[in-house]
Each structure stands twice: as C-alpha cells, then as structure tokens.
C-alpha cells in the first residue's frame, strides 16, 4: 500500500546517478511551508551521502490550500523542458515566501529563459498534464500530505528531520 506506484524512470527529474544504491523521492508542493523546511534538509542529505544518493522530485500541489502551488509546479516543468528544472526548483524554494504571479514571471530571466514563453505556457496549461500525472501517481502511491518521501520505493512514515532521514537512508545502504 505504501510503495511507489510508478517506479523512478526516464521521465523523472533526478539528481545523481541512476545506479545509486539509494534513491530518495519527494512528492512536494512549492508553496507548502513544510516542503520549504525540507528543502535544505535534502540538500544536506545529498552532500552527506554524495554519489550513494539520488534524488527525485515529483509534483504534488495542494491547489485548494496554496494558490501558487500549481503555477509554480508548471514553472518548474517549463524550466525542465529547457533542461533547467533543478535551477528553477531551487529558485522556487529559495523564494517561497515571496511567491506571486509576478515573481513567477521574473524567475525565468535569472536562468536566461524567456518570461513571455513561460506566460504563454502557463496560460495554455502546457505543463498541466505533467503535473496532474505526478499528482495522480502520488495519490496511488499513498502520498498523504506534503512533503511525502519514498526511500527506495518505500514510503518514509517517520519524521523528515535531518537525523531521522540519515538514519533511514543508512539502513538502506548497510
């Protein structure tokens, strides 16, 4: 019941090696404060485990609670289509408290992307199916809020503070 319904694959945004012994998957929402707190923790984990850990981010916007979660997710996917997913992912979390329609359209310039193209993509819902597909697969995997982490496909039900995560990943690597 609490395993990833869709295994990590080529369509995923992944940092780190496909062959890494441990893959951490996060279902997250760019406007969720808890995900904002988890963001630097994941960075620390990546630094700590190095090549032994791969990280995958999938969208799980809670649109009724967070009005900018969906456009932010589509903005990251837009950047992804230009091979700059992670740069945008980081920018979104680093600017989480200032998220607005206006800010979303300012971020592409920092990555040398065209804001007009983003505006058009948001308008037409170009990346909406991708975000929705992530969400639906998340529901099927037992995602029960944001962030929800999966470690090698298994839902992590414990706390996601740094120490707990290190411990959980160490168990996999042993």
């Amino acid at each position, binding site marked *: *019941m609490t395993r990833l319904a869709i295994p990590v694959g080529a369509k995923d945004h992944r940092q780190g090696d496909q062959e890494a012994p441990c893959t951490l998957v996060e279902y997250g929402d760019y406007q969720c404060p808890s995900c904002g707190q988890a963001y630097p923790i994941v960075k620390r984990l990546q630094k700590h485990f190095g090549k032994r850990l791969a990280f995958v981010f999938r969208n799980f916007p809670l649109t009724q609670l967070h009005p900018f979660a969906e456009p932010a997710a589509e903005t990251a996917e837009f950047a992804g289509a230009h091979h700059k997913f992670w740069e945008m992912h980081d920018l979104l979390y680093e600017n989480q408290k200032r998220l607005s329609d206006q800010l979303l359209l300012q971020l592409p310039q920092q990555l040398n992307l065209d804001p007009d193209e983003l505006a058009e993509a948001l308008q037409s819902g170009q990346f909406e199916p991708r975000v929705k597909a992530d969400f639906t697969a998340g529901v099927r995997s037992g995602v029960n*809020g*944001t962030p929800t982490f999966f470690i090698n496909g298994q839902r992590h039900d414990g706390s996601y503070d740094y120490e707990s995560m290190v411990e959980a990943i160490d168990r996999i690597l042993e």
Partner: protein
Amino acid sequence: MAGILTPGTLAPDFTLPVSLDRKLSLKDLRGKPVILAFYPADWSPVCGDQMALYNEILPEFEKYGAQLIGISVDGVWCHAAYAKDHHLHFPLLADFEPKGAVSRAYGAYHQDAGFSERALFVINKDGLITWSYLSPIGVNPGADGILEALEELGAAV
C-alpha cells in the same frame, strides 16, 4: 474497543447536521458509493491534513460516482469555518450531539480521547460496507486504499 465495522456489514444509517439548517442521512445517498472518513478534529496541521488531501482528490473519487463525507465530533460552526478556510468541496458532518454516537456505531470512537478515530469506510450503492480501514491516529491514511476499494466496486462510470 471492539474494532471498526468490517466488510459485509450493512452500514448503520444515521442523520447528522451538515450545517445549521441542513441534515444529511446516509440512506439519502443510496444508489451511489459513499466514502465515510471519520477523523479526530478540524484544524490539524495544514500540509499533512487528511481532509485537505481528499479535497484535492475529489475529482478522482467522482470518477467512480462516489460521494465523500467527512465526520468528526466538531460542531457545525467549527466545520463551517474549517471548510471555508480550506476551500473544502464536500460535506463535513457534526457527530456532536449525542457526542460521537455515529462514530461509536461504526466502532470508530476513541473513548479516552473523546474524538473519532481515523477510520475509513467504503459503502456500496446498496448500503453495504465493502472496505474499511483503521489508521493509527497520528498517521494520515492517504487515499490509495479508498481508490482501490472503489475500483473493486466496479462502479466506474
């Protein structure tokens, strides 16, 4: 605690307030699948909130023609404020007077704590419980189990 009602049991009927001037009876929903989600309280921490999650998943439930109902011992005003704040698009029933009576009928009342357990029931169009699940109070059960149960009903429309 005798445990929650199990599949094969006829779902006990009830009538509870859904707002100050409106009540809802389970029998009124005959003819379509019903998801009963008992939960401890409104206003639990936001991002991991079970009702907020189900609210997002409503279109998935609707694919099966299913009606979702949340039930807790909170009163109608509390439910109203919570539903408004979280933009909830499904009814929350107040199992408020006599307190927890419906939760008890489903075996989903936490006597010591004085609120409902996190218990889920899927009821078929004839009013029969086909799936039930009791989650530890601190663990949001998600929706994968509900969707699998709805799928099994073959109620896809």
